[in-house]
């Protein structure tokens, strides 16, 4: 089935470009705030997961790696990984780590801690990243936030690539904190609405 591609089907390029930019200049990590805010804004404003379904660059990149490039074993995602407690547990863990990153940013801003020119992988391993910091006219906390945010983005990408290789291309989506948050928002917005009867071939407005 040949059909022309939509512009948003090329958004996978954003993932490698973002990671590359952060490799050369850490301040580009701030662009990652777009990936944080846009899904939430869409979910709150429209009550759907159009971001995940259509615009998510990471989802597309994982599909490309695992699907077209066949880097995925395509095995079923383990039961524990798709369970509710793991999804919500990972979301809580992720948010706690995000708050901790904001706390370190605050400490640097307050002058209680010096700027750490490194990236922390898997919230544990400190990797030197000083080449990506060229000094800034802005306050040191701006760079500290960039290092912290880039650490989070790189770590979550690495987790995504690992589970993509081990299981299905988009296994990351099962426990993606943004996906879990936006689905929770959508559930709250849908309230008690009932899924329309799909046995008769009718469907409500999509997505």
């Amino acid at each position: 089935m040949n059909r022309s591609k939509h512009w948003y089907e090329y958004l996978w390029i954003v993932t490698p470009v973002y990671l590359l930019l952060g490799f050369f200049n850490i301040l580009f990590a701030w662009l990652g705030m777009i990936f944080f805010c846009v899904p939430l804004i869409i979910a709150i404003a429209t009550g759907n997961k159009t971001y995940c379904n259509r615009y998510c660059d990471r989802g597309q990149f994982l599909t490309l790696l695992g699907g077209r490039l066949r880097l995925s074993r395509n095995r079923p995602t383990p039961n524990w990984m798709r369970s509710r407690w793991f999804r919500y547990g990972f979301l809580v863990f992720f948010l706690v780590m995000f708050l901790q990153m904001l706390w370190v940013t605050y400490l640097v801003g307050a002058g209680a801690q010096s700027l750490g020119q490194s990236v922390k992988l898997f919230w544990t391993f400190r990797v030197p990243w000083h080449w990506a910091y060229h000094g800034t006219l802005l306050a040191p906390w701006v760079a500290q936030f960039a290092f912290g945010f880039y650490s989070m983005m790189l770590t979550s990408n690495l987790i995504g690539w690992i589970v993509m290789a081990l299981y299905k291309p988009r296994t990351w989506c099962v426990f993606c904190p943004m996906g879990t948050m936006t689905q929770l928002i959508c559930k709250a917005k849908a309230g008690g609405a009932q899924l329309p009867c799909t046995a008769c071939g009718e469907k409500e407005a999509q997505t």
Partner: protein
Amino acid sequence: MLSKKFAQVDRDFCVACGSCVKVCPREAIFVWRGVTAAVEALRCVGCGKCARECPAGAITLEERGAAQ
């Protein structure tokens, strides 16, 4: 004529990522309000592409009549 099987979504596991929607050759599956994917049973031909693609293992193929 309807196919013998059709896809069904387990809403407890569906994460509404939409990967099933992209692979359905009949446009028989959609994401309802960002909550769950849902299958239009009459359109579904039971090819199983969505079930293979689903990262959450939320889609299974069921015999018509047994599940409907």
